[in-house]
């Protein structure tokens, strides 16, 4: 049983890394949102599985929050925002999938190289979990750095946050209050970002960051 539990936890956490890679090469906004929903779903499963094997019942709450908000509410809200902004047809110019994939692979290797020696004392499950979580965080950052579209930026940020939750679930003894407050902060971030997206759109007729940049005042070369 112990072996199977470990394998499943490993599978789910690894699944998150794989889905993060899927996020990296989506060039359509809707597809990006769908993959993000999948990302959150895998997160919910991973956290739920952790709750089961750690017998930490408060983690079920975390899993529930991930499932309801991140897998359903936030993607739906973003869908509607994208629809109302009318940018569902825009193609994201991804700088080169191969380049991003290579960079992502390097980041995963880096995460493993950093985490495994540091957590030498901890049990194998937490070690794997932390390494995968760091990889997800780094991939989320990579997504934010390589994309032009503001919506992609939001998705990158949310996936990064998913990585944090994965790390929190893997580390035993994380109080529930912390997780709930993190979840709420993400919700509030969504609302703020949503408002901002509309405001930006009103002012600049675009949510392309490159376009916005040309309007900045006091720019010096």
């Amino acid at each position, binding site marked *: 049983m112990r072996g199977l539990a470990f394998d499943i936890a490993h599978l789910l956490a690894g699944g998150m890394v794989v889905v993060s890679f899927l996020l990296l090469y989506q060039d359509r906004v809707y597809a990006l949102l769908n993959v993000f929903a999948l990302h959150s779903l895998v997160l919910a499963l991973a956290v739920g599985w952790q709750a089961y094997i750690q017998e930490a019942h408060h983690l079920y709450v975390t899993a529930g929050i991930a499932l309801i908000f991140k897998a359903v509410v936030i993607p739906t809200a973003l869908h509607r925002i994208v629809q109302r902004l009318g940018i569902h047809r825009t193609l994201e110019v991804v700088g080169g999938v191969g380049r991003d994939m290579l960079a992502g692979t390097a980041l995963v290797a*880096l995460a493993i*190289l*950093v985490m495994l020696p540091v957590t030498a004392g901890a049990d194998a499950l937490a070690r794997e979990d932390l390494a995968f979580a760091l990889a997800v965080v*780094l991939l989320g950052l990579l997504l934010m*750095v390589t994309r032009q579209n503001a919506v992609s*930026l939001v998705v990158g940020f949310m996936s990064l946050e998913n990585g944090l939750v994965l790390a929190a679930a893997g580390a035993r003894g994380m109080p529930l209050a912390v997780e709930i407050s993190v979840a709420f902060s993400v919700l509030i971030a969504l609302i703020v970002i949503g408002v901002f997206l509309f405001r930006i759109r009103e002012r600049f007729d675009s949510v392309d960051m*490159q376009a916005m940049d040309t309007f*900045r005042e006091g720019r*010096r070369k």
Partner: protein
Amino acid sequence: MSEEVGFAIMPLPLLLSLPLVLLAVGGYAVAAAHRPGCSRLVYGVTLTIAAVTLGLALAHLLTAAVPATLALPLGLPWLGAHFRLDALSAFFLIVANLSGGVASLFALGYGQHEHAPERVLPFFPAFLAGMNLVLLADDAFTFLFAWEFMSLSSWALVLAHHQDPANARAGYLYLVMACFGTLALLLTFGLLAGPDGGYNFAAIRAGQPTPGLAALVLILALLGAGSKAGLVPLHVWLPLAHPAAPSHVSALMSGVMTKVAVYGFIRIVFDLLGEPVVWWWGGVVLALGGITAVLGVLYALMQHDLKRLLAYHTVENIGIIFIGLGLALAFQANQMYSIAALALTAALFHVLNHSLFKSLLFLGTGAVLTATGERDMERLGGLIHPMPWTALAFLIGAAAISALPPLNGFVSEWLTFQAILISPELPQWLLRFLVPAVGALLALSAALAAACFVKAFGITFLGRPRSPAAARARETDRYSLSALFALATLCLLAGILPGLVVDGLAPVVGLLNGGARLAAQYSQPWLTLVPVGEVKSTYNGLLVLLFMALSGTVAAGLIHRLASNAARRGPAWDCGFPEASPATQYTAGSFAQPIRRVFGSIVFQARERVTMPPPGDSRPARLEVELHDPVWERGYAPVANAVVAISTRFNYLQYLTIRRYLSLVFGALVLLLLGMVLWR
């Protein structure tokens, strides 16, 4: 026995609750600064609280009570806030609250003239509370917190009149230097606490630092406490910031806050660091003290702004105190504890003295400022006629700071010289040469200080008014006068009864000096001061006073007796002023000129230039003096220029795109992680 313990533990909670009252009053003043009586109320409360604190500290010191400690569950959760009242903190509490109380008394009158009370009233009690808390702190966190609180509240007071661009610059420089000093202290405590993080002073005392670490702590403590105290070359902010504040605050900053900095240095080096003293430590502190004393007084001589002149004299006196401390370190390193006790007594005595006469002089300047609105000596003069009492008090303060007997300044400098005269008994040749050299610097600075105060008093109070404002001056109010005379009386008392002060200091010296202290002086006949032995040297202030009074009376009597009453006729002597214009008088610049020619041409690269208009041109000839501040131009300006150059270079970082910023964060993270992997 149980009674004794009960008495010892009692005062500390009371002492700690008093700053809270001060803070509450400050909070009230935020809301009510403009109400009519608020100024009286605030200063009345600070006066009362300073008096109570003074009484408690005095009782602790005189009964030589055992140190009281108290731990409160405040501050860092795993550390708490620790407080301790021992002889050292009791002595400095006396110094702080004596000046604090008198400054409050002065401000009862002076504060009425404040045109921006909302910028002064809330911060004055907070400043006093901060200083008291520094003196009571018994762990590094509480100490640094109180230290920063003190710095920031005094910074707010410096900026009380912030419309003046000079004050704004002074405030900025003060803030930068205060941050630098606190950083040095932070590192000091970090080194002292060690990797286990024993930030409690009791744990630090118990630890045994290695010699290298201890030397580093000494240097950092010199930087941290020295920048607050005004040691050259860290003094640059002091002569700008101290005069910028209202005068009663200047008195506190110069008279007390620099002493709190000295307290920090003594606490760290003599108390926390403990025994492993190496002889060159004393040499470093001595040399710095000597340079500070002479440079401070030379700067002061070049000043014509009364408050700035006083602020530079603070630098000088801090130098004298550090000379005493350096001597004590040098003697302690050679196990000559009885002589180290002498040097320490001298330094602590000078701490008390300087707080007394520097507060007196700043308050006197405040009185002049209210009466005339002028700080520039070149626009004052003749004030002894409208303000005779202020002039008398200022004269006593000036004589005391010039180290003239029978006043207090003489006693502490005399004691310092006694310690210097014993220096040939030191085994290290370098110290044997260094100490007499520093002694010569000390003698030079004392003489120059006297010259400087002849100038300050003479130009301000004697002669004829140099501006209409000075001619219209009126004597200051009764609160201010009583404050001035309280300090003047204390200066005189400490001068003629030095034995009592030395006995009062004995427990403090014993605490810092492994138990060794000076012999009790009260048993000496005629209240004579005998620091080392009767064969070496003695001083009796009372006798000097009696002699001066007697000889003065006899001389006056003789002159009255022998001089003839017959009327004499002669040519009218015009006192050297053929014209009635006050511009024909001696000026502050003319007083300073000989000394500027001797020292200034080397130290300040002083250049004088006379521009004569060609014949037929009706413009007057002009004498221009050009001075360079060596410390600023060689030490600070290059650093400031480098900072500006680097920030200009990196200014473009302020105008990046969001993606660039994200990439920077991302890159930094990846780099650090890579570093972690490779370094391991």
